[in-house]
């Protein structure tokens, strides 16, 4: 049942991504100021949506773990955080490549870039902490607290650098006003977002299965020692 779900989600993601890749590369014209490079936005923006949603879900799962003390939530939080960190890495990488062309530099200490980097560092610390603790309930407890502290921190950073210094382009989507994209150019962002969400779901399912497996190993080992 779970395997079937993984298969369907994979197929869906691959289908949408291929279709949109074709659409973006061959149907859409170059942007008038940026040329071809603007197409990076079709990965950059969906990846950041997916990543941030993941971090928020991880926050919820961490809270649920502390409330219920069910290790399932801990496994879920760990899986979601790890996958979201992968997407955060994609955001940073694609953003830097875009910046190299448009700004002429790989990196700038702009508000959004800094927030993203802080976010990346915090969750990398979270995953490092998990590796440093062997005892499952202690690991779950401590990393849940770190997740809650980290997510709060990102919200503070986000708010506090808003008025700091910004050269990052304003949000381009028309959901918020001031969106500057033509209608046909905007839809691939949403399609790719859907595809990346499916991909993220697949990765989370696989990662969670591993988490369950290692828990089984732990309990078997304890059984072997108790004989």
């Amino acid at each position, binding site marked *: 049942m779970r395997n079937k779900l993984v298969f369907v989600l994979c197929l869906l993601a691959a289908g949408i991504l291929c279709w949109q890749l074709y659409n973006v590369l061959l149907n859409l014209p170059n942007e008038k100021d940026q040329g*071809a*490079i603007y197409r990076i936005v079709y990965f950059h923006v969906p990846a950041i949506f997916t990543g941030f949603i993941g971090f928020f879900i991880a926050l919820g799962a961490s809270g649920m773990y502390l409330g219920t003390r069910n290790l399932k939530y801990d496994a879920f939080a760990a899986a979601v955080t790890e996958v979201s960190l992968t997407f955060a890495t994609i955001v940073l990488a694609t953003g830097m*490549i875009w910046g*190299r*062309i448009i700004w002429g530099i790989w990196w700038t200490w702009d508000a959004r870039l800094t927030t993203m980097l802080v976010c990346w560092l915090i969750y990398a610390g979270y995953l490092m902490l998990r590796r440093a603790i062997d005892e499952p309930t202690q690991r779950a407890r401590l990393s849940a607290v770190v997740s809650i502290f980290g997510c709060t921190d990102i919200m503070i950073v986000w708010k506090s650098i808003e008025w700091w210094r910004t050269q990052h382009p304003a949000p381009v989507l028309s959901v918020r006003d001031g969106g500057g994209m033509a209608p046909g150019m905007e839809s691939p962002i949403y399609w790719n977002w859907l595809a990346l969400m499916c991909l993220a779901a697949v990765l989370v399912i696989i990662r969670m299965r*591993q988490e369950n*497996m*290692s828990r089984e190993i732990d309990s078997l080992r304890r*059984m*072997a020692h108790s004989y």
Partner: protein
Amino acid sequence: MIDQRNFTYMFYGFAAAWVIVTIYVGFLALREGRLRDELERVRRMVEDSGKKN
């Protein structure tokens, strides 16, 4: 704007995104294999020590 360079970097951007996903999937696969081996070994260990007693 130099169009050729622009186009090349767009390609790099797309490639980077996929390379990162691929690396992560590879990392997952490696861990999956390691865990499977480990599980197999521990299972056998439990069976053996169960038989002895």
